[in-house]
């Protein structure tokens, strides 16, 4: 037994600072946050009566919070769809050697290096909601102005200034920033497919489409899974970008749980704010935990 300790003792000791830090800064804080969410601390007035799940029930029954959840779903779907489509398309075109492929890859990827705040500065301007056919339309700027000047004026719309679909407009800058990353994932996936496999399939007389369907897509599915998990969880947490684009945090059209948590926090409603944070955690965990368990099992093989 001691020999075993001697074997893995030092290892454990070396990573123990990390373990302690994460135990405190992640797990202990999560527990404390859940505790706060179960009190009635709704103002700066100190009050820590335990109220159990009352805040959660009230939040889920609240029409505004439901709207925020619906927005979050819509945002995630559009964000995922956009990045997967563009990321796959670019990877598909670029996976065969091409002249200047390094240049194209670099351009598609560079938005990832920029912070959401910085990109929010320009996208706020681009997504400005005034349209040329409205009163005051001569003040139109951004994409609406561009669309109008190239003859696509009918495509103008109010972007995020819409109570039902506005959040989908927020997905546009997010797609712009992250499609390159998904492209890189797919490129890696493509290049992980051995050439022999393709050759073998071709020799067997497979058509291009059958090749994709039976060889390439299956090989790419782990990559796609990774992309869905990563983009999905980023979407659930998205906050910086929304804050950078929408001036007032308390704007109904684009409310998602992350912004509601902030608004409640400013209003000193710490219990509700903590509850929303916990709900966000649960949502992310639903997506991420199965994935982590799956990959952990994969590695055991």
């Amino acid at each position, binding site marked *: 037994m001691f020999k075993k300790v001697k074997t893995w003792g030092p290892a454990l000791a070396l990573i123990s600072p990390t373990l302690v830090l994460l135990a405190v800064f992640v797990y202990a804080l999560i527990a404390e946050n859940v505790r706060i969410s179960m009190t009635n601390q*709704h*103002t*700066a*007035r*100190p009050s820590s009566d335990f109220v159990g799940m009352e805040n959660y029930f009230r939040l889920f029954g609240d029409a*505004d919070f439901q709207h925020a959840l619906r927005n979050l779903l819509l945002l995630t779907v559009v964000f995922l769809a956009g990045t997967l489509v563009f990321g796959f398309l670019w990877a598909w075109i670029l996976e065969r050697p091409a002249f200047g492929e390094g240049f194209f890859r670099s351009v598609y990827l560079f938005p990832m290096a920029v912070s959401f705040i910085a990109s929010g500065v320009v996208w*706020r301007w681009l*997504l*400005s*909601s*005034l*349209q040329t056919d*409205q*009163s*005051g339309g001569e*003040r139109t700027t951004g994409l609406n102005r561009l669309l109008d000047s190239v003859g696509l004026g009918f495509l103008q719309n*109010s972007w995020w*200034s*819409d*109570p039902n679909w506005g959040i989908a407009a927020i997905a546009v800058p997010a797609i712009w920033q992250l499609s390159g990353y998904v492209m890189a994932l797919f490129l890696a996936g493509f290049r992980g497919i051995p050439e022999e496999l393709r050759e073998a399939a071709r020799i067997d007389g497979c058509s291009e489409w059958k090749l994709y369907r039976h060889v390439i897509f299956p090989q790419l599915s782990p990559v796609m899974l990774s992309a869905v998990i990563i983009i999905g969880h980023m979407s659930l947490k998205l906050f910086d970008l929304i804050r950078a684009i*929408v*001036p*007032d*945090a*308390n*704007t*109904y*059209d684009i*409310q998602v749980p992350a912004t509601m948590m*902030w*608004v*409640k*926090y*400013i*209003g*000193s*409603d710490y219990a509700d704010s903590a509850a929303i944070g916990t709900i966000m955690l649960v949502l992310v965990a639903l997506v991420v935990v199965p994935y982590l368990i799956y990959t952990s099992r994969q590695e055991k093989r």
Partner: protein
Amino acid sequence: MRRIAMLASVAAAGLLLSACGGGSAVEDANPSEASGSVGVFTWWADGSEKVGLDALVDIFSEQYPNLKFDNLAVAGGAGSQAKSVLAANLKSGNPPDSFQAHAGAELQDYIAADQLEDLTSFYEEAKLNEAFPKDLLDRLTVDGKIYSVPSNIHRANVVWANVDVLKKAGLDPAKPAADLDAWFADMDKIKESGATPLAVAGTWTQVQLFENILLASLGAEGYNGLWDGTTDWASADVTKAIENYKKALSYTNSDRDTLSDWGPATQLVEDGAAAYNVMGDWAEAKFSQDGKKPGEDYVYFPTPGTDGVFDFLADSFTLPKDAPNADGSKAWLTTISSVDGQQAFNAAKGSIPARTDVPADKFGEYQKSAIEDFSSDTIVSSLAHGAAVPVAWLNELSTAVSKFGGPQDVAALQDSAASIAKKFQQ
């Protein structure tokens, strides 16, 4: 190596903390002996508000040459951004030496959280109880104690209008409408002439517009009753008021939520793209800074239907508990409440002094009229600016108002507002 780095940072943190002494009791703090720097937290980070702050800082440096003013200003009108940063700082135990807060219900949260020092003795020393009007003192007093020093009074029920746009629509700038219905009729004329009748910006400015419509529709008593429980939110009067708000919104610019703050909306009026803008009288400082002349380029009048009512908000400064330099804080508070300080600040910022003994000759035309109104009008508290209700109530009502901007469902807003009021009136 990393252990050394971590040890070093912990040691540095410790040194930093010991350098900031603990906050001494207010009674011991003596402003005339104060030295060092005074960190003052406001949201006057740009525009006309910054100009006012700068003027105040000049007086402060004159009165207390040993003290250095540390500007901790954070941008974002009505202080939304600043309040969140301040909340975080207070919660994490790093109070500034003084911070700006709206007088009235907004202070209640800080008082309840035991984050403010009692300034009643300071008021007696500085003889402020004689200098400030009684209504104001009442608004500032909580359970017999006063917790902040007002620097200025603002009015939230003013309409700013562009003279040329009015003339072009056939309206007389010198004769504003007498009530809401007449005003809406005027707005129809503006619409026909091709300009946007009413300019408004994001959520908090919409809330301010909403409060003005409420005030105009319900009168001062009815309006006050909304907050103290004597007016029933579910009543037919309130329904009519909300319908008036809906009508007002129909005259506004469609990109209101995308405007980054109150400035761009007022700018629309200044530039002649819109006719009217309901905004607090800090807009006055903007107009004069941009070189516009009252009467020639722009006119102002109380929101139609609210003549004789002064919808007030007051900026005030507090002394947080455990402030790093309490001496310096008291010096700052002395400057703010002094005649010179109030005069310099208010002349630059477009507001009026809280003190009643400041000579009015240094003030502009608008301010002179406001000073007169303040002494004779009925005073009510502004909703949007933290005077009427505490922050949490305001936030929820703001969400409801923001939501209204889309579908404009009158019944929904009325129901929401009623249940929110019920929740907070307990």
